[in-house]
């Protein structure tokens, strides 16, 4: 069975500082994709970053980067130079190749302190 675990229900960061959100997962498949989605107060789910499991290089999108540790089944999100607009719920998600479902973690609420 597939599981996604986010062990930090809440995190906070000072504006302009760096924060790391944790995610661990479990899957028996070797081919899969991992995602981080952001859900602001409007509640629309916005794709932040994606990582293909077969790629060793960590994905990066501007101020957002991941630390993908395949052996440890860990997929953390680092937000650099945090901005007030980064405040949101962040969800880690797993997609197994050939499946139709995205498996979501329970989310981490990020607060950015001015």
């Amino acid at each position: 069975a597939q599981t996604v675990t986010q062990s930090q229900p809440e995190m906070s960061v000072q504006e302009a500082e760096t924060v790391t959100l944790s995610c661990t997962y479990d899957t028996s498949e070797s081919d899969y994709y991992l995602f981080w989605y952001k859900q602001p107060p409007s509640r629309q789910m916005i794709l932040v970053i994606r990582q293909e499991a077969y790629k060793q290089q960590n994905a990066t999108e501007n101020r957002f980067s991941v630390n993908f540790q395949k052996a440890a089944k860990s997929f953390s999100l680092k937000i650099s130079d945090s901005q007030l607009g980064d405040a949101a719920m962040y969800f880690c998600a797993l997609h197994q190749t050939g499946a139709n479902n995205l498996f979501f973690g329970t989310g981490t609420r990020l607060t950015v302190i001015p």
Partner: protein
Amino acid sequence: SQTIHQWPATLVQPVGSPLSLECTVEGTSNPNLYWYRQAAGRGLQLLFYSVGIGQISSEVPQNLSASRPQDRQFILSSKKLLLSDSGFYLCAWSGQGVETQYFGPGTRLLVL
């Protein structure tokens, strides 16, 4: 570019009333379409997905049904709403054979 629309944005319905939520996608053809529900303070649960017109797969047995009458239209329905149907409903799309899903703005449903 592709866009995804959902309506209504908010809905308050009495128990036992019918439901129809609509989702449409623009700027792409033959997408995979998905309905998710998010309970308060939780992640998303997949309810239905569709790989083509008239093709619906249900992930969770429940009081809801889905239909896909057109290529880029996905409808979530119920004949009689239950209190437990309250939640936030999100529609998503992905390209065929593509893993990334993109979400609509969602519908807040409150059943009283």
